[in-house]
């Protein structure tokens, strides 16, 4: 997928009189932008308002989207709340994503390389299984998986959120697609020079696969920030709880104020928005790449 192409308009230049169409399109685009921005700007506006009373009065009016006051009071309260250790949650989430993605990159690409350039006759079957497994929704396996991890004694830990998700058929498949397109001459030449299979993987193929590494990392990052069902079941207290579950728990507490809830939401969303803005080009390519599997 050439991501540059996606970023450039390819329009059939149908010139119309007075450009009525362009005006209509612009209007439609503005409507879409408003629909997207209203909920997000409400989150930010409410989070900046220190007065809960004032928030409740303004919640359904225009003042809910345009900040009148800018105060970091709610943020201070959220970050200092002894019962909701936000920084701990952030650390937990980052640790989980870092370990899952970091080890996953090596383990999945290694398997993919063996499938693309190994010698075993098992490889065709293996690939078939990998592609067949795409179909199984992860959610369906949570209950037996819960039994597996509780037998391992992993409930309420970091590894229970990391280890089951390191190997991913989807990223093996993405790496495989990339490796199988490598020119045979490169691999053969390295073999002639006496390089072992592992060396070819580690010194040649792996360093070349940066686009796939970027894609897999971005999707892994998104997954970690969105994960909810699994950590909800396997974490008990605040110690290993990730952001998603913490957000829901905080929202569910009776005495929580909207201002603090929204400050928590902004703090949770900020890191991923920053990552998105920095890697937007890769992000678009990886979403499209992830969509075109099968």
């Amino acid at each position: 997928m050439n991501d540059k192409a996606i970023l450039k308009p390819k329009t059939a230049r149908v010139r119309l009189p007075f450009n009525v169409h362009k005006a209509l399109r612009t209007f439609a685009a503005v409507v879409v932008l408003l629909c997207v921005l209203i909920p997000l700007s409400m989150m930010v506006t409410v989070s900046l308002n220190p007065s809960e009373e004032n928030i409740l009065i303004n919640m359904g009016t225009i003042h809910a989207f345009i900040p009148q006051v800018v105060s970091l009071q709610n943020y201070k309260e959220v970050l200092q709340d002894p019962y909701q250790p936000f920084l701990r949650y952030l650390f937990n989430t980052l640790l989980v994503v870092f370990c899952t993605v970091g080890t996953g990159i090596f383990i999945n690409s290694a398997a993919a390389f063996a499938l693309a350039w190994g010698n075993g006759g098992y490889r065709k079957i293996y690939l078939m299984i990998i592609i067949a497994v795409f179909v199984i929704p992860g959610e369906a396996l949570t209950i037996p998986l819960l039994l597996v991890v509780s037998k391992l004694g992993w409930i309420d830990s970091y590894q229970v959120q990391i280890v089951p998700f390191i190997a991913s058929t989807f990223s093996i498949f993405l790496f495989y697609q990339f490796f199988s397109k490598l020119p045979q001459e490169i691999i053969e030449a390295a073999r002639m020079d006496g390089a072992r299979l592992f060396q070819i993987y580690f010194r040649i193929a792996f360093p070349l696969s940066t686009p796939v590494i970027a894609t897999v990392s971005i999707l892994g990052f998104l997954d970690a920030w969105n994960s909810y069902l699994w950590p909800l079941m396997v974490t008990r207290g605040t110690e290993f709880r990730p952001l998603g579950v913490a957000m829901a728990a905080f929202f569910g507490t009776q005495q929580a104020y909207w201002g603090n809830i929204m400050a928590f939401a902004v703090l949770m969303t900020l890191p991923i928005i920053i990552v998105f803005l920095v890697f937007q080009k890769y992000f678009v390519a990886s979403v499209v790449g992830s969509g075109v599997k099968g």
Partner: protein
Amino acid sequence: MQNQPKLASQTGTKTRRSSHTTQEWLDELLLIAPASILLFTFLILPFFMAGYLSFTDERLVPRPIPTEFVGLQNYIAVMKDPEFWQAFRNTAWFALLVVPFQCAISLACALLLNSELPFRSLFRSVSLLPLVTPMTVIAVIWAALYRIPDGFMNNILHLFGMEGYIDWLGDSKFAMPAIVLLSAWATFPFQMLIFLAGLQDIPMERYEAAKIDGAGPWQMFRYVTLPGLRNTNIFILIITTLQAFKLFTQVDILTHGGPLGSTNTLVRYMVQEGYTAQQVGYASAVAVVFVILVGAFAILQRVLLKNE
């Protein structure tokens, strides 16, 4: 869309050395083993466990009584449980509402993005924001928008002269549509990007030919764009439906499956039975039914796309 994967080392000429040393086999084992062990333990094993456990009365916490084989009892119980059918209907209803709604929005936005706009790149960046916002955060934001009696959604309706208010999340008539609205908002950019990629694969020549034939914008869309998107359409319909089947997070946070079970979904029902009620055997039967449903859909996708 290849169903016979070609192996890179088998392509090209057949001048491969056939003498593979032990060293090379060891290397290959070293490369493939870690992923294989993990996949087996956390994917293949749970998959077969679900099948096996669904015929037993296994519980989450070990009991003094050993686990017994109960045959089809779980499946019969699932089929008899009105709560399961309610969850099934709700999930289907959600899919039926969200799929056309979300696909229409995504396609419209993709067409906008693919045309000349004065602020295209801004439009693209902003419209992707919901996709990177975590679902838990989105649920919380929409809880505020749906507030009664004077939240944003109700006040909009007041502008149009509505009396009273709609209890969006507390009224069983409106709870599912409310979930549909926020779900569409949350994930439409994903389909939009895939539509966009599909639009850009349509050769320009077709548009130019249509223009020479004197086609207007609507005819262009009807006779060039839509046929050109045929594969993309099928793919997006399937993937959006599969996404809809997995509905859980939004519902769990906003309505807890209520009111009166009107937003309980298959995944939530399964978690309820397997985790909250600890009936692993029973929940495994639900999981098997769920996998069969999703699998049937995926096979449908294969069949539809193979006809190309």
